[in-house]
């Protein structure tokens, strides 16, 4: 199959950008991210990863794939499997038909990824576009620089990993051909949805209020005998913000890029000015990450309230930003 790989910063938006381009609709990665209203913030103390609460800077997995269906009038087909053999057979069958197939996988079992990044995270998206003579799958992993190959046994494990967000062999592909939407209709709707998520979420742990809630939790961290746990806690926040393919600043830069594109498509320079503001906010998130890392390494004394203040300042700026965005949309 003729397939054009391009590197992206985030797996799900990268997969959808490549898949749509392959089917004749060239949408950038930031456009798939923004159009599906994927930007968010959530602090979920109930969901623990290795004993630490989950912090997310975007909507839950599959939100981008599903969220693009309405604005693009696109129907995606999703298939999961109770038994791995059936899932393998179906993937091979689709590849034999020449289809490009999206897969949900666990990062831990993908041998081509760097060892230190292979944790048990089950919602990593890759594209399969063919098989080698040896039987190895040819994959386009959006966060990798080039296409990769993966032995069948490893890919099967990755697709049928157990635990939170278990993929159950999920594969997906579009039905029909995507068409360019009416930008003047879909872009304002997507922008408004993001402002609703960030400003009006009914739970205090989502959106701007979620950032303040996290600040409160960091305020209470112990800098004395519990310092080791406190460092793991703040380290986890930065890992979710920077390490897990976010394009930097917890997806704030990728969303700013989307705003620049939207400004051009709609002929609204106000959105371009808002993009500038969001780039500044992304820089502040990166300063927060830097301050945190310095405390983890004891280059600066561990002082959680200082980090909490930084987060509150970011929350104030994001609140003002999303209110302006709502008016501009």
């Amino acid at each position, binding site marked *: 199959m003729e397939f054009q790989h391009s*590197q992206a910063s985030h797996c799900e938006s990268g997969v959808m950008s490549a898949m749509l381009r392959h089917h004749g609709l060239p949408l950038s990665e930031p456009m798939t991210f923004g159009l599906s209203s994927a930007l968010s913030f959530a602090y979920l103390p109930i969901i623990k990863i290795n004993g630490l609460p989950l912090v997310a800077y975007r909507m839950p997995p599959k939100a981008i794939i599903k969220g693009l269906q309405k604005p693009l009038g696109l129907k995606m087909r999703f298939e999961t499997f109770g038994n791995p053999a059936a899932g393998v057979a179906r993937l091979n069958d689709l590849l034999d038909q020449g289809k490009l197939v999206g897969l949900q996988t666990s990062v831990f079992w993908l041998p081509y990824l760097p060892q230190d990044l292979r944790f048990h995270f089950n919602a990593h998206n890759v594209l399969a576009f063919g098989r080698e003579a040896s039987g190895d799958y040819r994959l386009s992993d959006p966060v990798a*620089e080039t296409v990769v190959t993966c032995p069948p046994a490893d890919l099967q494990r990755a697709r049928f990993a*157990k635990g939170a967000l278990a993929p159950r062999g999920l594969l997906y592909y579009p039905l029909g051909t995507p068409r360019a939407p009416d930008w003047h209709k879909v872009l304002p709707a997507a922008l408004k949805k993001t402002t609703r998520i960030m400003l009006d979420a009914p739970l205090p742990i989502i959106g701007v209020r979620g950032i303040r809630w996290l600040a409160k939790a960091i305020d209470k961290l112990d800098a004395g005998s519990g310092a080791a746990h406190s460092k793991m806690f703040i380290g986890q926040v930065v890992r979710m913000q*920077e390490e897990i393919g976010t394009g930097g600043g917890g997806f704030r830069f990728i969303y700013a890029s989307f705003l620049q594109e939207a400004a051009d498509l709609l002929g609204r320079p106000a959105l371009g000015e808002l993009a500038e503001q969001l780039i500044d906010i992304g820089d502040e998130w990166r300063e927060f990450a830097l301050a945190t890392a310095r405390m983890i390494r004891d280059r600066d004394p561990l002082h959680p309230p200082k980090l909490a203040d930084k987060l509150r300042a970011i929350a104030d700026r994001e609140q003002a930003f999303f209110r302006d965005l709502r008016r501009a949309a």
Partner: protein
Amino acid sequence: MLDSEVPQEGNSTLGGHRKAMYARGTDGKLHIVQSAGWEVEEIVTKQAVDDLLRLAEDARQRALAGQTSPLEYHMYRVRMDVPLLAQASGIWQWRIRRHFRPAIFAKLSPSLLATYADAMGLSVEQLKKAD
């Protein structure tokens, strides 16, 4: 972030890979820039990896001293904890903790050992040893 400010200081946890970041070019537009790594990311990734290595090494020492079973060591070595191993193997958490007792682990049935080994991607022979 300007594209000239994208960190290129290297990050050993990336294993030589470069990752895509969004940064502002001279025309004011954001675009993808490859980053060789930022020390901040290296610090927080290493922190998580080192914590798991510490747990595995601690369990290995206790397994060699006969205070726990090799099961606990391998669980941490494959970056799992008890709740995750329970989900991956279908075995209840309290049973897994019971199987950390060396005397009970020594008497486990081959099929139960095979279930554990399969969940962690090991052979049964590997699972029985803590080295």
